Every structure is written in structure tokens, then in C-alpha cells.
């Protein structure tokens, strides 16, 4: 099939009426599983839920959380950050200020500021956030909704307004010799 000149072996040509001849089917693999403790994960956060913990229901809190267990329901950490560990199995919608995913999540992810998908992560669900970081190798199936960073835009527009107001004087200072020369020539 892989001869570069198909004329030499016409029988291997795909039939036009149907789909072309296939090569051998690749061997099936298991569901993309996050590698167990593939890399050091930051765990120096206030609360820690270990890999043997199973929670069914609503999980919420007012502090940063490292979650490496199994959760079915909802996870809402409000304005705090959430790290989903490599052993985690989450069947829940997740909401937090900043979310870092190492493990497996089935559900929508809403990070108010940032969502980060590490290479070991498997996410099936939609992402809604302002900034997103995806490492090569991360498996993601779903939609991405990147929201505008209103605060950053306000800061930018404010900075632009300030720079605009100082631009004339700044440029005068920087370009003084050149401008003087130009004006001198113009006068001439």
C-alpha cells in the first residue's frame, strides 16, 4: 500500500466507490488516564483532600484547596484557588478563582481568573474563564468561552489615558535636539 508509485501495484489502489483501503487498526488503549503522580504537584495550600476521600454532594469553602479525591456533585471555592490533583476523579461542575487541573474532570469548569490544564489532565466539559493555559498532552473535549478581563481592560485604558496625557511633554524632552534642529531648518 505504501509504494510511492501506485502504478507498480495497481491492486493496492483504493476503490473509488468506497473508502480507501485501510492499514491495520491501531491497538486500542484504555481511557486517557492521568498518570499517577507524574510530576510534583504544589500542595502547600490551606486545605487538602486526599486521594482516598470520596465526596458526594456540594463542596464549597473559603480557602484554597488541593483536591485529589473523588467528588460527585458540585465544587465551588468562590474567590479562592483550586488544584485538582493527578489522582482526582471529579464528576462535577467546578467554580473557583483560579483552577489548575492535573486529574480527570467531567463537568464544566469556571475559573474567574484563570484555568490551567496540565499535561496529565483529562477534561470533558466546557471551560469559562478569562485566561487559559494548556500544556501539550492535556486531553480536553468541550467548548472554551474566554471572557473579557474587565479589570485589566480598565487598567489598560487608564494607562493609555495617562500615557496620552504625558506623551507630548515626554516626547519633547526626548526629542528635544532633533526637534530643535527640525524647527531650525524649517525656519530657515
Amino acid at each position, binding site marked *: 500500500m505504501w509504494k510511492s508509485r501506485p502504478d507498480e501495484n495497481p491492486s493496492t489502489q483504493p476503490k*473509488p466507490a468506497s*473508502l480507501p483501503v485501510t*492499514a491495520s487498526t491501531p491497538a486500542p488503549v484504555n481511557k486517557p488516564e492521568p498518570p499517577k503522580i507524574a510530576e510534583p504537584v504544589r500542595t502547600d495550600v490551606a486545605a487538602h483532600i486526599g486521594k482516598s476521600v470520596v465526596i458526594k454532594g456540594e463542596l464549597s469553602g473559603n480557602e484554597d484547596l488541593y483536591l485529589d479525591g473523588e467528588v460527585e456533585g458540585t465544587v465551588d471555592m468562590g474567590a479562592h484557588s483550586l488544584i485538582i490533583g493527578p489522582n482526582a476523579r471529579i464528576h462535577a461542575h467546578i467554580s473557583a478563582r483560579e483552577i489548575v487541573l492535573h486529574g480527570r474532570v467531567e463537568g464544566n469548569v469556571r475559573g474567574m481568573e484563570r484555568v490551567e490544564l496540565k499535561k496529565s489532565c483529562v477534561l470533558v466539559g466546557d471551560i469559562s474563564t478569562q485566561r487559559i*493555559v*494548556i500544556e*501539550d498532552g492535556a486531553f480536553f*473535549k468541550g467548548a472554551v468561552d474566554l471572557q473579557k478581563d474587565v479589570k485589566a481592560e480598565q487598567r489598560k485604558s487608564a494607562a493609555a489615558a495617562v500615557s496620552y496625557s504625558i506623551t507630548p511633554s515626554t516626547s519633547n524632552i526626548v526629542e528635544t535636539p532633533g526637534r530643535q534642529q527640525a524647527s531650525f531648518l524649517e525656519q530657515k
Partner: protein
Amino acid sequence: MRWFRGTTDAQAKPESTGKGGQRVSRRSTGFTEFMRTVTGTENLAVLDLGPTSSANISFLTQFGGRVYNEDILRGSRDRSYFSKQEDGTEKLDPQKFFAENLNHQEGLFDAVLCWDVADYLDETLVKPAVERIHKSMKRKGVLLAFFHTKDAGPESPYCRYHIVNKETVELEPGPDFRLQRIFNNRHVENLFKEFASLKFFLGKDNIREVLVVR
């Protein structure tokens, strides 16, 4: 490593080395046309069927649109979609696969990026996948697909595509998938026969880029 047979230095230049391997920059006429078509579309919805790429997401969302990512090739290797045959071997079951994949509402997408997924996808999935994509696209929506030419061999590496700008994509050797077949032009036309029109672009590196309009 050979990328695409016939690749010239002018067409593809190694630029940087990432974790996944050496990236090659490639100007793409098909992608340029694709972007020309979708630019200005309100509430743009794009389906990317390649491996997840943050470059693609950030590039496409800057137009105010929504990006849907579905790596169907990697998904198709999920063991849960395989059924045991009488002879003891396992075979991919399209019904199981499509029960969980490419299930989008009709007329949702303005654009679809297929890249070269069809060349690597299991044969039993190719036609049904295209039919489902056809249903999920809006009228006059566009689809971009790449196809290897007959000169490509099974050792042609599967690549992830990263969008650089409106004219250029970067190719990075991705997961290890084997090229399943070579489509000739008639196969491609048959594959997209339900669509309104096809436009072929042949690059110097012998990759055919096809822009298909729903």
C-alpha cells in the same frame, strides 16, 4: 525526520524545539482562505478536531468566538469504544463511539478545522464523522482539511497543528498515530459530496489542503 515527502526548505523551516519535538512552520494557503472566510463572522463558533492547542484557542477566541475542541482521533482509541469479536479480537464499534462523540446540535458551527485527522482515523469512523460534521455546520460554513498525497508513507508522523497567524501554522510531532490511508482527489470529493463546494490547494510539500463549504 521526514515530515511530508517533498518538503522544501523554503516551505517548512524548523523554528523551535518544544517538549513534543521540533516544530516546523508552514505557510498554508488553505488556512489563509479559511480565515478570510470566517473573519467578521458574528458569534463565530469553531470546532477544532485536532489535539488541544492553547495557541489555536487563543488565536480563534480573539475574534470574539467560541472554540469547541474535540480530539476525535485520540478519543477513538478509548478502549470503552471497542467490542470483542467472535475470534477474540477487539474492534472499534462506531455506534459506541458516536454515542459519545461528535454529538452537537444541528447548524452550530461556522467553521471546522479537521487538519489531517481523516488520514489517521479508523476507516469505519470516517464517513459517519463527516456526515455528523455536515449536520452540525451552518449553511455556508467552512471546513478545512489536509490530506497527504500518494508519496506519504506510513511513517509520516502525525502532527499537532498550532496556528501562528492568519497565514501560518506550526506542525509539531504529536501522539504516535499511524497513517491509515491515502485519499485521492476523487475520494475526497466523495467524502464531502453532501457539501456545496470544494477548493483544493496543493502545497509544494505535496500536502493537499481542501476548503469545503457547507
